[in-house]
């Protein structure tokens, strides 16, 4: 049993071994339907999520587990139950792992301290989203073999992005160079301490990148004046056809989804030959199977 609370805390060789395992879980791979047979995986989602929840659900099913789906809507949380009460009640049903999404950073860490089963972070606040980073790294490894010496440019709302944090840690651990790009209002302090380079000039950074990962820009950020408008954001940081011209010939485009088409990504780029966005989604299931195998089997 092992927790996956974040990429932080995992060594390079552990991450690599997990990604290597994920290959076996690709469609057409070995039969892994027995790995979690007779076990229960509890999906504990305190925040709406369709793709991550579905992906974990399919991963658990594919390993032969039963899945307990718990969502916050209409639950006892709205009656004032604390997070720990909820988690302990779920634990009492005997799952091998709790897959947890929560809007507060660190919530899975709190739960992990008080339950005996594995806790897998499926996204906590603005902290980490490790399974997303692993599937992104897996997708890039599929392309490149190794990540050493490659440059990944992550563009957008880094401040509020758990995807950015986990990817920064994961890609750095695997030997890549990571450049973060966005307006200063959406770049928090201290990212250099985590091994990132920071720029506010997308056009200057684009030609160096082997992969460009666009982050979803939340529409409410505009109301909070982190950016003046989505229009201006798209003008300064949107990946459009003209910018695509400046990219390396073989550079890829990524997005954790869901995409705001025409804001962070022009439709032609999102659907174009560089895009690996749907590969990311497919790989997600294989990577999450490997995560469940390592943590819960």
């Amino acid at each position, binding site marked *: 049993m092992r927790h996956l609370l974040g990429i*932080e805390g995992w060594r390079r060789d552990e991450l690599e071994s997990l990604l290597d395992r994920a290959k076996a879980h690709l469609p057409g791979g070995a039969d892994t339907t027995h790995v979690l047979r007779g076990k229960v995986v509890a999906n504990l989602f305190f925040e709406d999520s369709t793709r991550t929840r579905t992906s974990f659900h399919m991963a658990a099913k594919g390993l032969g587990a039963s899945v307990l789906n718990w969502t916050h809507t209409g639950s006892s949380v709205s009656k004032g139950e*604390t*997070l*720990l009460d909820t988690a302990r009640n779920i634990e009492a049903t005997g799952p091998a792992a709790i897959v947890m999404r*929560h809007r*507060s*950073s*660190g*919530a899975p*860490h*709190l739960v992990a301290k008080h339950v005996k089963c594995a806790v897998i972070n499926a996204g*906590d*606040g*603005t*902290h*980490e989203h490790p399974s997303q980073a692993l599937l992104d790294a897996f997708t890039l490894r599929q392309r490149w073999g190794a990540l050493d010496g490659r440059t990944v440019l992550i563009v957008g709302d880094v401040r509020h992005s*758990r995807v950015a*944090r986990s990817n920064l840690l994961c890609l750095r651990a695997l030997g890549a160079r990571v450049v973060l790009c966005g307006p200063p209002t959406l770049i*928090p*302090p*201290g*990212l250099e*301490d*985590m091994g990132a380079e920071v720029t506010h000039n997308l056009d200057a950074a684009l030609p160096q990148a082997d992969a460009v990962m666009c982050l979803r820009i939340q529409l409410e950020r505009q109301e909070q004046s982190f950016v003046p408008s989505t229009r201006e954001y798209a003008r300064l940081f949107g990946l459009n056809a003209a910018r695509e011209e400046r990219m390396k010939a073989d550079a890829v485009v990524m997005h954790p989804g869901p995409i705001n088409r025409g804001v962070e990504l022009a439709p032609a780029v999102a659907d174009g030959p560089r895009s690996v966005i749907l590969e990311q989604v497919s790989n997600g299931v294989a990577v999450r199977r490997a995560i469940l195998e390592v943590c819960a089997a």
Partner: protein
Amino acid sequence: MSSTVLFRRGRVIDPRNGVDGVRDVLVRDGKVVEVSEALLPVPSSAEVVDAAGKWVLPGFIDLHVHLREPGEEGKETVLTGCRAAVAGGFTAVVAMPNTKVVNDNAMVTELVLNRARAAALCHVYPAGAITKGLKGEELAEMGELVSAGCVAITDDGRPVMNASLMRRTLQYATMFDVPVMVHEEDLTLSAGGAMHEGAVSTRLGLRGIPASAEVAMVARDLVLLEETKGRLHVAHVSCEGSVRLIREAKQRGLRVTCEVAPHHFILDDRAVGDYDTHAKMAPPLRADSDVLALREALVDGTVDAIATDHAPHGVLDKLVEFEKGINGIVGLETALGLTLELVHAGVLTANRAVELLTHGPAKAFGLPGGHLAPGAPADVTVVDPDVEWTVDAHQFLSRSRNTPFHGRKQKGRVIQTWVSGLKVFDKGQVGQSKESR
């Protein structure tokens, strides 16, 4: 019955009166009678405290304590708070008004004072609210609060965001010559923040509270102070920018004082570690550069007092998501040990450390005590500077245990506390002894 106590051959550190050396201290009927380099004759019926190898200090004064009564007696009461205070060597505490009912009227002030009289352990000085209900809208009846016994006014826990109202507060308070104690936090800058904004908050993905949230308000209030010729006391200063502004304002002769809490000069934001809500407080633990700046300010006189911001909370207030965790830690029973860490590290002299716990706070608020000259109140704290011990939150006399210092090794501990010549704490036991009563 008259009570006479002779503290024999202790190292007396009394910064206000320039004393630091082995002395006999004789107290009678609640007052200091004599402090002597020579051995004093033992008066008949006197209790003799053999203080050889110990420090005999003026009782500590804490300008910033939450006693939680009325309203949250499950966290602390005036009685349990006083027990924690005397266990920590404090003979006087200033009680913050953000109780539930708020101390914005004389009835609440009187209730707190009555409870303190019943506890009969240490001096309790209530602070009254600046605004009715701490809402930041209308001034509370400051004159009534002061006549009922409030020694300061503050909306502690909340800033007075309305600058015009703050200006009037400082003006109006000049009639009563009480300090206006301020919690400096621009709520538009701190909104939604759970810890200091910096590399640690970025790594943890927690929304940060920038230092500017405090510094900008300190700047504003110093501008208002200069204009109103009022008296300002900045509570729990946490960052470099604030001490720089306060230092400069003092040099220009403004009537500003300030305090620093032990957690802010001992810990930095890395103490949040793995989302430890015991490291969650307002203002938040800052960067290591801020900690160094606070230490400098303790040394150079910018800081007037060490104050604990003793903030008791229940287990359930902390056993939640970090963002939901309630701010604050208990501090009365760990303050001396943490202050002595700076002495052992050579940052503070013993004399300066004692000044920050005694005469400094007394002077800032114009309170009695804080020194041991003949005629002063016989509020005395006896410290064993060499004893090594480990903080054990389960042993706290406070009703709450929320501290990030559980398990921390300390050197130096309070062994006796005397208030008005009566022994209220002795070797871990609280209560007035029958002999001295």
